[in-house]
């Protein structure tokens, strides 16, 4: 029971504490306006190249953009604690690790889900794309799984951020990497084989494919194996992120790098 409290309160509090600066002016441009423009950008590029449909780009980019909160919010959480020298204090406390760290993950997942859902809705409305109402619950599920998966990647990124100085560059690079490899804007069949192999083991690829099918009117059962694949990826990345975080903290304690000097 205590674990549950730590999980809920700890996560929410640290999220709030470190986002006191997340004022309206950061929130709105970065998480609400930008994804819509990314969708429009690629939809129009698609029209210029006369390739895929608008729907292809809307779904792809809406989900891919959920990487932003997953990467940056999680990095801020972990790095921010180091910055405010609270990470050391937390690690010294006897609180169990697992609920503590997943307590941080949940607000981030929620943030990502919101971003993807909003972007998908706004993009569809603006470009006049019809998504069958029956698909919406299933789409919701796919988005949640995708967000969880990418939050795992965000945990890994945040862990690495404990050791490297300019974490923002890495986060931006991962975002760009996802832009290419997840099939958000390029059909997987267009990518060389080695790239397709990579696509299969990263977050979003399966979810984007599933979401496109659902938007076309397919049923949940026809995409369930894609969802399952994404769930598997989510578990692997979350576990890896958690372990990496613990490893770097232990290292940080050994080399006294946990506090901001």
């Amino acid at each position, binding site marked *: 029971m205590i674990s549950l409290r730590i999980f809920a309160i700890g996560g929410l509090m640290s999220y709030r504490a470190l986002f006191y600066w997340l004022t309206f*002016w950061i929130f709105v441009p970065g998480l609400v306006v930008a994804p819509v*423009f990314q969708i429009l950008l690629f939809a*129009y590029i698609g029209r210029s*190249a006369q390739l895929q449909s608008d729907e292809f780009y809307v779904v792809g980019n809406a989900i891919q953009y959920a990487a932003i909160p997953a990467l940056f919010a999680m990095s801020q959480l972990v790095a921010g604690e180091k910055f405010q020298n609270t990470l050391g204090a937390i690690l010294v406390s006897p609180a169990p690790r697992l609920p503590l760290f997943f307590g941080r993950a949940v607000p981030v997942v929620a943030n990502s889900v919101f971003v993807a859902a909003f972007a998908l809705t706004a993009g569809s409305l603006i470009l006049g794309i019809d998504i069958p109402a029956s698909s919406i619950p299933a789409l919701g599920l796919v988005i949640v799984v995708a967000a969880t998966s990418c939050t795992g990647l965000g945990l890994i990124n945040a862990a690495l951020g404990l050791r490297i100085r300019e974490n923002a560059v890495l986060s931006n690079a991962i*975002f760009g990497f996802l*832009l290419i490899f997840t099939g958000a804007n390029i059909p997987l069949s*267009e990518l060389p084989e080695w790239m397709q192999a990579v696509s299969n083991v990263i977050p979003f690829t399966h979810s984007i494919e599933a979401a496109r099918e659902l938007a076309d009117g397919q049923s949940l059962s026809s995409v369930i194996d894609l969802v399952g694949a994404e769930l598997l990826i989510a578990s692997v990345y979350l576990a890896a992120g958690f372990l990496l975080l613990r490893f770097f903290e232990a290292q940080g304690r050994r080399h006294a790098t946990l506090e901001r000097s």
Partner: protein
Amino acid sequence: MKTLRLLAVGWYYQFKMISRSPFEGIGQVIYPLFFATVAFFIFRASESPRTLLYASLGAAVMGMWSATSTTAGNAMQRERWHGTLESLVATPPHFGLVLLPITLAMSTIGIYCLVATLALGRFVFGIDLTVEHPLLFALAIVGSVASFGSLGFLFAVSFVRFRAAWALGNLFEYPVWLIGGFLVPLVLLPPWVRPISWVLAPTWGMSAIREAALGGSPLPDLLLCLGLGGVYIGLGLAMLERVLSAARKRGALSLS
């Protein structure tokens, strides 16, 4: 003459500093390359060499714009972090002559982005870049850098009240990519968007660069681009007076 030297020396040292920072230097170049790669994949399917060249140039200028939009808005905040903003304001010249070289230096990084994108196109995607009017091409690039930097100057002055100036600057990255005619011809955009494109210097810089490369007439576009740059500087200077005296009144020049 003295003014020109002041601008040149200021530009030189600011550019030196930015180039020496991995975050502000390399980081600026790498990020747009991802978008360029996506663009290359998308346009490769079309197989027309002219289209690919068009895409290559478009992506290259996207990178140039990115270098300015993501950094210029934050120029004054950056000086505050260094602890140098007060020292700069305390100097005799009009602060505009101090700030403009900073945003120009930031947009000069765009040349690295341009070269990197064209290289990516050439060596990874096999897009041959032949430039019909090399001298005008170079001129168009320099002119674009200057006018992007001027727009950056306007951003820097406008955003100075906002603690999260960097977030506001980023807000202008995608929209300009969308309506600047980089990878999306203006004719494809809804008619009401086009006037907005026309008052953006990047639109004309892109056009000038493209015309110079593909063998058209870049000069009118280039002149329009530079003219708009001048307008941005004028607007920025007009705002700067009010911004600075407000800062002096509020005591907001130091980091506190």
